[in-house]
């Protein structure tokens, strides 16, 4: 099944196709002569490393960006979309990798933004609300249509984003990493919806760095590498190893737990931590949580959406005030200190939402990287540029950030590389304990393996690591200890020898997965 043969026989199935698409940004060639077909009633998945050009291709297919050269055909006729609104009128809809919701508006208004349902008396809010409820029911979510989006957790926002794309009734639905903030349970539900859609003849393009998950749902696989299509195949003919080989040229594993050695002293100790929920009277999101992490130990926290992982980490880092409980760093209570003071003392958090909490979009890559450790290179009241520059260069090569240099605007990096900037920034503060909230969100297998390798290396040197994940396979990579959280409490605790089934069962998702 060679690529040339496939392109030659353009079957009736193909609804949208791209031919010889080139896209350049300044001196960066994001896409070079890419051919890509989207088939009716089929899921086509695009695989590729961070910065391979996946999102760029999707933006071209959905009218967000114009190709530098090359053409698109829709139902066999050449077409050029003038905007995403234009593309949508042809039935092409996209879920962007980064959320594009208006935080101040509620769920209903976000979903119908720009296509409000009109009635004689203005906007028919009741009908909109009804439709949103139906959509949410389809996704099995209890999200009230009238909640402002800014009050929702990242995963829920992603659900809203998905619901919006679904509500359009598109013929072609593009999903750029729709599941990066979702856990297995929600993914399962999304996949059911995808099956329904393909059964109705909707063409789907899917992008995900969760390769197994993507293999599970897809019909066709296309691999992109440095802006070039390196392989394409039907799912029957391929396996995980095939994808990774074509994506990166080598195979990765996520690492194994560094051998059980004697850990150091307890670095981070949490005692009876309670964090109140959004409703004061309601149940707390973190309920009497206690946890000890020793120097050199890697602890993985697994849980479903809403298990309270993010709330707990943010509270430990000082973003939220706990209802009660204490946070001890090397035996010292830091619960009353500011975030800055905690960083100073060696407690760093890599937040979950890099756009909102991790990056300053108006600054360069370098300045983002040095932001958290800036006071360490102040000499005689001024910043030492040589120290800063060497720190930036070090971080870029340490976490393998693909960028033109420290001076590049942060917005020019691909999603995964932006994530690496946030991780690099906090590692540069030389913490004693680091908390990472979904550190692998949106990064490719290679980068993921790198991040885990870096964490493992730092742990060997005595860093206490706590990271959360929604992917079971990541629990079983480098962690010495796996903690499953459920409704704000520890539901179970495993050693490195746990099995996927154990972990999933403890988190409460086995019911659905079975």
């Amino acid at each position, binding site marked *: 099944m060679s690529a040339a043969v496939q392109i030659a026989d353009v079957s009736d199935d193909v609804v949208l196709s791209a031919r010889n698409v080139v896209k350049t940004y300044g001196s960066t060639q994001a896409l070079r002569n890419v051919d890509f077909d989207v088939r009716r009633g089929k899921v086509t998945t695009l695989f590729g490393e961070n910065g391979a050009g996946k*999102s760029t291709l999707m933006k071209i297919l959905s009218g*967000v960006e114009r190709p530098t050269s090359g053409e698109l055909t829709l139902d066999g006729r050449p077409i050029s979309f003038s*905007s*995403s*609104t234009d593309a949508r009128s042809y039935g092409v809809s996209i879920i*962007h990798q*980064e959320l*594009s919701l*208006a*935080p*101040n*508006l509620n769920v209903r208004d976000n979903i119908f*933004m*720009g*296509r409000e349902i009109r009635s004689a008396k203005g906007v028919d809010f009741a009908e909109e609300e009804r439709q949103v409820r139906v959509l949410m029911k389809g996704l099995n979510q209890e999200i009230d249509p009238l909640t402002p989006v800014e009050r929702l957790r990242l995963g829920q926002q992603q659900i809203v984003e998905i619901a*919006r794309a679904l509500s*359009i009734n598109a013929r072609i639905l593009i999903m*750029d990493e729709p599941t990066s903030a979702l856990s297995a349970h929600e993914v399962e539900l999304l996949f059911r919806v995808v099956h329904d859609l393909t059964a109705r003849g909707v063409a789907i393009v899917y992008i995900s760095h969760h390769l197994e998950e993507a293999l599970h749902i897809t019909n066709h696989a296309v691999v992109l590498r440095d802006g070039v299509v390196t392989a394409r195949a039907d799912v029957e003919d391929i396996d995980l190893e095939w994808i990774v080989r074509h994506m990166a040229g080598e195979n990765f594993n996520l690492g194994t737990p560094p051998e059980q050695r004697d850990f150091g002293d307890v670095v981070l100790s949490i005692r009876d931590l309670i964090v109140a929920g959004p409703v004061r009277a309601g149940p707390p999101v973190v309920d009497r949580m206690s946890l000890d992490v020793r120097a050199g130990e890697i602890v993985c926290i697994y849980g479903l959406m809403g298990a309270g992982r993010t709330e707990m980490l943010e509270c430990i*880092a000082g973003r939220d005030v706990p209802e009660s409980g204490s946070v001890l760093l090397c035996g010292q209570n830091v619960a009353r200190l*500011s975030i*800055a003071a905690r*960083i100073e003392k060696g407690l760093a*958090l890599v*937040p979950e939402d890099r*756009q*909102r*909490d*991790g*990056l*300053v*979009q*108006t*600054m*360069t890559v*370098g*300045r983002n990287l*040095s*932001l*958290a450790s*800036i*006071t360490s290179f102040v000499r005689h009241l*001024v*910043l030492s*540029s040589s120290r*800063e*520059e060497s720190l930036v260069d070090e971080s870029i090569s340490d976490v393998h950030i693909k960028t033109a*240099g*420290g*001076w590049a*605007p942060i*917005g*020019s*990096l*691909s*999603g*995964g590389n*932006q994530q690496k900037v946030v991780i690099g*920034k*906090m590692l540069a*503060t030389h913490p004693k304990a680091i908390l990472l909230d979904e550190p692998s969100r949106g990064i490719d297998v290679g980068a993921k393996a790198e991040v885990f390798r870096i964490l493992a290396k730092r742990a060997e040197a005595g860093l206490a690591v706590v990271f959360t994940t929604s992917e079971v396979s990541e629990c079983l990579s480098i962690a010495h200890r796996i903690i499953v959280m459920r409704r704000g409490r520890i539901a179970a605790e495993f050693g490195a020898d746990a099995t996927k089934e154990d972990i999933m069962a403890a988190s409460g998702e086995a019911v659905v997965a079975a």
Partner: protein
Amino acid sequence: MAGLTSSLGTRPGTPMKARFDIGRLLLEGRAFLALIVIVAVFSSLSPYYLTVANMMTMSSHVAIFGMLAIGMLLVVLNGGIDLSVGSTLGLSGMVAGFLMQGVTLSYFGVTAYPPVWVTAILCCLVGGLVGLVNGVLIARFKVPAFVATLGVMYMVRGLALLMTNGLTYNDLGGQTAHGNTGFDWLGFNRLAGVPIGVVVFAVIAVVTSVLLSRAAFGRWLYASGGNARAAELSGVPVRIVQVSVYVFSGVCAAIGGLILSSQLTSAGPTAGTSYELTAIAAVVVGGAALTGGRGNVRGTLLGAFVIGFLSDGLVIIGISAYWQTVFTGAVIVLAVLLNALQYHKRGRRPQALPGGPTSSLARAGQTLPTRPA
């Protein structure tokens, strides 16, 4: 224009290199070019325009609202706005006038005449205090900057008017007998031919510029203006930064008030009315983004000079005050238009939303992705 150098374009920590980058110079050069055009046009229309004497006079006008503009720049970089600076300028002059007349301490039965330097420091403290009120309202009590400083603007103006029931202090010369002469030093004396007011302005500009580009505070300011949440999680003391910029702005306004009343040797309670708008205009013409995080001192200086030299030039060639207003407005609109184009070209447009981006997003911009990755 200039905004890009210190926040975006420059290699971290090497702001000096930007000077030698031709492309960036041209970009940044927009305000500079405008200034050259203004000077060229007016000197061809009036032989008096391009004389050293006139340049100095115009510069000392620029120094006054330029002071306000530098304070405003810091506030704008933080993503805020300070509408109270014009009033603070007026109040500062009034406080100076009040102190120069002698303070009667009825308890001791004496009248104290504080020396000029004490008066100047007290005025700056008053300005700083106004800024502190702004800062605390905004950082601690989360009042939107526009509203907080609008309220303070009225209150401060009211206080200035109350001090004399609306009358002007006419004589700030002081008396040798009281040991408080020399107030006109700021307004009339010269250092190597340059008015002291302009020198003070230049010194403050240089100090601020170094603060922004070379000190940790500057980086904190750019970061918290660009994304306050991310800055906070990176250990930036965002509240302290926020309060400081308003205090700084208040002090700058107070110094502006001192220079103005010294130039006039009188202090009126309505001095500086609507100067806050001129200051905002200078900052915007200088390439700063009102959404925060972008802008620098060089740009703001150019902006201040463009506006100052333009309006003085119009006066010199005898254009009616009404037309002056129209021209100034046109320059501001043009400058902002160019900024919008430039930031757009840099690929930082908001994400395409179904139905197009909505205006309600503009302010929430900090929490929004600026480009889908």
